[in-house]
């Protein structure tokens, strides 16, 4: 690739070409006929001046001018200020499915559906008919398994989640339903202490759009988005 795209050389129309203008802005010398033109052409001179102002500012840039992130406490204070204001619940509710990375791929594939004994526990807790079920498989580096079921209750669909032996944590576990690509998600709720948890699903929730049940480890960091630290995951077979 030459790096030179099709470009109208200004000389045809009497003006300087943009590359020459850029070099002049950097303080380089150009051929005599070009600088003659510059003396008589206000339009070209204005372009040079504009770029030269940019160059002059840029030459004063120091390492300290490179954007650096504020301390974590700043976000926490923002959350506190907005929450205490009461005007917004922006910080709780539905996180945006960010930073999932390649975990997304794991969600989309390998969704074997089997059954394990824990289903009995689900039945005992809520005998409503099961309309979809997911075998929750450990993500790489994890060894927790579980089962999730969607039950059709008289109050609407609920998601029942049965996972045992989650590692002890200083944070907490959150249940999500993801698209197969894991590029969008709905927060279902925070996992309680018991082995079996149930969550009402939002009315209008499209299980076909968000078929993947996911449990993530979250920290008390004020960040409501998915931590990208998923523990178990599986797709509903409905």
């Amino acid at each position, binding site marked *: 690739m030459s790096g030179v795209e099709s470009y109208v050389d200004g000389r045809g129309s009497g003006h300087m070409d943009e590359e020459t203008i*850029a070099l002049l802005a950097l303080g380089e010398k150009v051929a005599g006929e070009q600088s003659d033109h510059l003396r008589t052409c206000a339009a070209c001179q204005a372009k040079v001046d504009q770029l030269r102002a940019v160059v002059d500012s840029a030459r004063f840039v120091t390492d300290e001018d*490179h954007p650096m992130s504020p301390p974590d406490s700043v976000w926490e204070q923002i959350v506190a200020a907005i929450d205490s204001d009461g005007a917004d619940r922006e910080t709780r509710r539905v996180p945006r499915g960010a930073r999932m990375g390649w975990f997304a791929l794991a969600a989309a594939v390998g969704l074997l559906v089997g059954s394990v004994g824990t289903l009995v526990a689900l039945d005992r807790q809520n005998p409503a008919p099961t309309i979809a079920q997911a075998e929750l498989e450990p993500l790489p580096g994890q060894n927790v398994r579980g089962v999730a079921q969607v039950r059709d209750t008289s109050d609407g669909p609920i998601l029942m989640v049965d996972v045992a032996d989650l590692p002890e944590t200083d944070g907490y576990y959150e249940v999500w339903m993801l698209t197969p690509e894991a590029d969008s998600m709905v927060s279902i709720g925070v996992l309680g202490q018991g082995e079996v948890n149930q969550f009402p699903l939002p009315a209008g929730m499209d299980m076909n759009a968000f078929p993947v049940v996911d449990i993530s480890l979250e920290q008390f960091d004020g960040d409501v988005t998915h931590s990208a630290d998923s523990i178990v995951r599986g797709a509903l077979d409905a």
Partner: protein
Amino acid sequence: MRETGTTTDVSTSIPGSTEETSMGTTRGQSVRSRADAEITSAFTRGDDGSLREVYDRWSPLIYTVARRSMRNDDDAADVTQAVFVAAWQGRVRFDPDSGSLPGWLLAITRRKIADHYRAMGRVPEPREELPEEESADPAVETVVDRVLLADEISRLGEPQRRIIELCFYEDMTHAQVASLLDLPLGTVKSHVRRSLGRLRDRLEVDGVRR
């Protein structure tokens, strides 16, 4: 507020993942990437989670402008917090047609810095312990330009970034740069033109003067 669908849009869910560094962009696009546009739309709609995305994307810019203007990390943190709280609460006043979101955030930043000094009952003064050449308190505008330029230079791909740094900071001519990097003269000239144009555009788009 918004409906209870509580889903997130696919296109707005991957902040920062599409940092583009291609050099073939036309004017304006190079500094307003698709990801930025999507974060901005989500914020304008008041989407859940959009403030965090805006914060992740632009808090380093705001914090660094405040830090370089105020020369005090604690004050800069306070101003940064105030800017994002004010931006969220006043988001209905943001008009995407009249300027970029970072430009608007920077306008709030200027006001918050001024408010800070007013509350302290003084105008900014030079600090004695700073070296002589820094003794004049830099106007916030100058700081904004420098921080935006530092950011945009760091987003240039290679070899564009190296070329521009050699021209800016080593005072090399394009011919010397071409020779050093073993690149054709025309390639270096083309990179210089496009990179300078991109830096100029960044100042025009985000460095609004109010």
